[in-house]
């Protein structure tokens, strides 16, 4: 800036462009304006470009008359700024000529000072940046376009991604559903298989178990007449007794078969009533003694004297008849069987320990299925229905059963039943 000031001082006073011919030849427009904005001089290129004739120029044309209407206000204030602070010497605006051509231009103005260092006028180039602006604008629009397209693509991708995620989660859910459906079908199939297996085992057991008492009844009955006729009173009464016992066995077997059938079909009615369970067991002990003819040492123990419960008495009787008769059946004579009642918060726990033949550990679970008997029962009679009935009935009265057993040492059956059945 200092340099320019210095040079301009040297080229003064009147027209600062001494070599008019030179400036007339320059390919860029050159302008000289006073501080009010009146054009003092414009070279040939400028006059041609902005279509100003010599007459107009001599009359003193205002530089702002060339400025596009929209830019005029901005341009004037900008020119005022330059006058106050010549360091800002650039003025950007749009010019328009008589033909209506618009040019985006930059005025590069250099102030000219008088002896009092006061600005008297400006000289400078008018640089046409229309093409540059156009390119810039094109670039900008290209950029914007690109940005838009990227944004659009991003949105599309995000959308696709969301769709994909949804699809994945749908498929996942479908596959889970499919899996659970598969499992259900397989479960249903297994249940059907189990049922059919149970039925066929049922039939085969019926044919076997029912045949034995029937064989005795028929053969004894067939012989009765003969023993009566030949006067063998001993044999006559022996076979009469056998018919009675076998009939009872057969009747029990039928009873149990019906019971298991009913509980499987869900027709068992639960009738809760309040009674003292200690008294219930004491009564049961008396019956056992008569039935067992004191072959075993059966003992009963309870910490409390009275314990009222609300449950189905008849189901409870069936449960313990089965459990106790098992203990008697599979325990040798003179060995002990202990029954203990323990009072818990919501349950009554009944522990029955015997010194019997025991149950092989891997067979315990199987025993709850109908007609399932242990491999070590030997010739001891049984339908294989007892524990199956017990298990079913315990379900009805909110109870459960646990069996711990050691071969040839004994079995402990732990039964818990709800004190209050609602």
């Amino acid at each position, binding site marked *: 800036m200092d340099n320019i000031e210095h040079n301009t001082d040297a080229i003064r006073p009147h027209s600062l462009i001494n070599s008019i011919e030179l400036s007339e030849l320059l390919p860029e427009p050159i302008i000289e304006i006073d501080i009010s904005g009146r054009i003092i001089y414009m070279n040939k290129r400028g006059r041609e470009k902005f279509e100003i004739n010599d007459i107009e120029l001599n009359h003193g044309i205002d530089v702002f008359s060339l400025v596009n209407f929209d830019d005029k206000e901005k341009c004037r204030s900008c020119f005022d700024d330059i006058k106050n602070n010549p360091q800002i010497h650039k003025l950007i605006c749009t010019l328009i000529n008589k033909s209506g051509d618009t040019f985006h231009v930059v005025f590069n103005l250099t102030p000219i000072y008088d002896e009092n260092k006061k600005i008297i006028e400006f000289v400078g180039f008018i640089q046409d940046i229309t093409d540059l602006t156009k390119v810039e604008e094109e670039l900008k629009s290209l950029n914007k376009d690109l940005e838009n397209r990227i944004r659009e693509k991003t949105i599309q991708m995000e959308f696709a991604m969301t769709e994909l995620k949804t699809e994945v989660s749908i498929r996942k859910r479908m596959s889970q559903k499919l899996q659970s459906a598969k499992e259900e079908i397989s479960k249903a199939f297994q249940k059907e298989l189990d049922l059919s297996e149970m039925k066929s085992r049922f039939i*085969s057991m019926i*044919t*076997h178990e029912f*045949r*034995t008492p*029937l*064989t*005795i*009844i*028929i*053969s*004894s009955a*067939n*012989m009765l007449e*003969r*023993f009566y006729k030949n006067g063998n009173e001993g*044999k006559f009464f022996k*076979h009469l007794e*056998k018919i009675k016992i*076998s009939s009872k066995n057969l009747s029990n077997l039928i009873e149990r078969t019906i019971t298991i059938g009913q509980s499987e079909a869900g027709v068992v009615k639960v009738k809760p009533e309040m009674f003292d369970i200690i008294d219930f067991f004491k009564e049961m002990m008396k019956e056992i003694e008569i039935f067992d003819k004191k072959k075993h040492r059966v003992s009963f123990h309870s910490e409390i004297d009275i314990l009222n419960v609300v449950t189905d008495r008849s189901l409870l009787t069936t449960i313990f008849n089965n459990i106790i008769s098992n203990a008697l059946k599979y325990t040798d004579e003179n060995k002990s069987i202990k029954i203990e009642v323990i009072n818990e918060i919501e349950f009554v726990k009944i522990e029955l320990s015997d010194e019997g033949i025991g149950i092989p550990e891997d067979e315990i679970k199987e025993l709850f299925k109908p007609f399932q008997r242990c491999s070590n029962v*030997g*010739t001891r009679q049984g339908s294989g229905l007892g524990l199956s009935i017990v298990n079913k009935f315990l379900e009805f009265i909110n109870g459960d059963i646990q069996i711990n057993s050691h071969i040839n040492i004994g079995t402990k059956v732990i039964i818990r039943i709800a004190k209050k059945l609602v």
Partner: protein
Amino acid sequence: MKKILVIEDEKDVLENLCDMMELENFIPIAATNGLDGIQLAKDELPDLIICDIAMPYADGFEVLNVLKNYPTTTNIPIIILTAKSNKEDIDKAMKCGADNYITKPFLNQQLIDTINLRLLQ
């Protein structure tokens, strides 16, 4: 008097069969399992054997296999008397050399007739 060996693990059934044999004037010999049955057959050489299938120690099929392949017992008629009534068991017993197959429950006369027929042959 003809000797009849009865092999049956069900005590009450065994007792009835023995009584039945006595009523027909046969001499019954009782065995409560297959193993005892085989031994008694070899020792006593009965005229006929009545044998159950499901028994401890040695079942009816094993009794048949042993006795039908043992020189002194091979010709003794064996009547299988069992609660097993399915075809496979009957076929298996016949293959093992059973002479007759009767299912429980049976009528006394049906068994006696079969025994008498076998003893005649």
